[in-house]
């Protein structure tokens, strides 16, 4: 559980802390949390072609509801709840079957990231790792996936995650334990099959 206990609120989002007090404007929230929303949408399994739509929809909802944000949870957990709902709705819509809809591939396709992995080799490697993680996350169900994403990738604390997902803290712990096991199993299978090597 190394991921727990550190980097509680602002995590990797620079400047997010400044936003927390007073009344954040929509623009503040957008600026501070766009990367978080984007990452979360991807990590929760939004197919690459739909990430734009999902993120837009999230911010439309944020815009509508921001005035009613009560500050009982942190903005970040509040936002994650919205992302989760939008991703779910989107997935349902995909399942309901637009003939035109991109196949409900859960994982980001490696080829979609062509404009992303700019330059430094390290970035490429990170993007590769991220794609692989996306793929491995496919083996987790929705609940465990959300916990894993928040704990391992966002490095949020268990109480924060509990707030974001509206579940008891103990549930967070047990889901995370299972999620890590399943993730590790998927990774082991993957390595056995593809001889993937970390650098």
């Amino acid at each position, binding site marked *: 559980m*190394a991921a727990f206990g550190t980097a509680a609120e602002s995590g*990797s*989002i*620079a*400047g997010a802390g400044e936003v927390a007090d007073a009344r954040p*404007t*929509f*623009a*503040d929230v*957008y*600026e*501070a949390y*766009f*990367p978080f929303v*984007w*990452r979360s949408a991807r*990590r929760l399994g939004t197919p*690459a*072609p739909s990430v*734009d*739509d999902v993120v*837009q929809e999230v*911010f*439309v909802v944020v*815009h509508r509801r921001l005035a009613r944000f009560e500050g009982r949870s942190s903005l970040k957990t509040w936002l994650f709840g919205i992302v989760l709902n939008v991703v779910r709705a989107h997935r349902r819509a995909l399942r309901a079957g637009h003939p*035109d809809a*991109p196949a409900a591939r859960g994982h980001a*396709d490696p*080829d*979609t990231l*062509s*404009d*992303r*992995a*700019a*330059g430094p080799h390290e970035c*490429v*490697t*990170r*993007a*590769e*790792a*991220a*794609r*692989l*993680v996306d793929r491995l996350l496919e083996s987790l169900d929705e609940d465990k996936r959300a916990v894993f994403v928040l704990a*391992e*990738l966002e*490095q949020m604390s268990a109480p924060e995650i509990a707030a974001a997902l509206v579940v008891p803290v103990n549930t967070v712990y047990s889901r995370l334990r299972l999620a*890590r*096991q*399943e*993730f*590790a*199993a998927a*990774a*082991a299978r993957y*390595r056995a099959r593809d001889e993937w090597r*970390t*650098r």
Partner: protein
Amino acid sequence: MTDWTPDDTRLVDLARDGHEPSESDRARVRAAVWAKLGAGAGAGVAGTSVAAAKASAAGMKVIAAIVVTGALGGAGAATVRAMRPAGAGATVSIARATPPSAPAAGSPVVVAPSQTAAPSAAGASLPTGALAAAKEPPRTVASPVSRAAPIASESAVQAAAGAAPAPPAPIAPSSATTPPPVTGAPDAVVRAAVRSTSTLEAETRLVGGAVAALHAGDPARALSLLDEHARTFATGALAEERDAERVAAWCDMHRDERARESADAFLRDHARSPLAARVRSSCAYASKTNP
């Protein structure tokens, strides 16, 4: 059950920063969100916290900030930045003064008469290489930015892809002429990329090119680019910025009468624009009181 291994830790550590949005993701989604919220929503979506208050009623688009950044000198020169990613040939980018995540204290207010740069303008970084690789004609599917720019014509897309000779390459020509192929990109992905960035990219090329031309001391060229934008994207996402730049272009040409006409038109059409203050403080009304 399989145990968690150090390899897993390494993988997750490595992946942690691998989901970040790219500059073009930022620019594209921002434009779409602002377009959705901007019109009449009273969205307080200005780029800075200071500007947010003033511009809240205007439903400000941050693209405005980008253009302002480019137009008003200082750090905001339009630049061409070659990128070396897999596939992308070149990226047209309008420099921003400050990263969006770090709104500077004492940052200039966008609507102030002596603006310099809007600090949190997301860099408009629009990859042309990847798009140019999309040989397939785009299909008009429900587009995330369709509201922003209703004219998602094929020519616009071609312009975006750098395939059409028509719109002048406003910013320095890049190596995008022969973009490396994006191998194996699924059609759906390419289509999605094309439809979501093409229109805005084409618009940005024109208006951004005009800004660059103004910087380069070529207001006549700027005007022709702006006219081109007006013809192609009469009600495009950057219409407001285009009309504001037009005022600046006439001013640069010392054609104060024309500047005044353009400024009057701007203030009539975009009365609540955050760019209005800039227009009012332009040469158009230099010798007269504000309208």
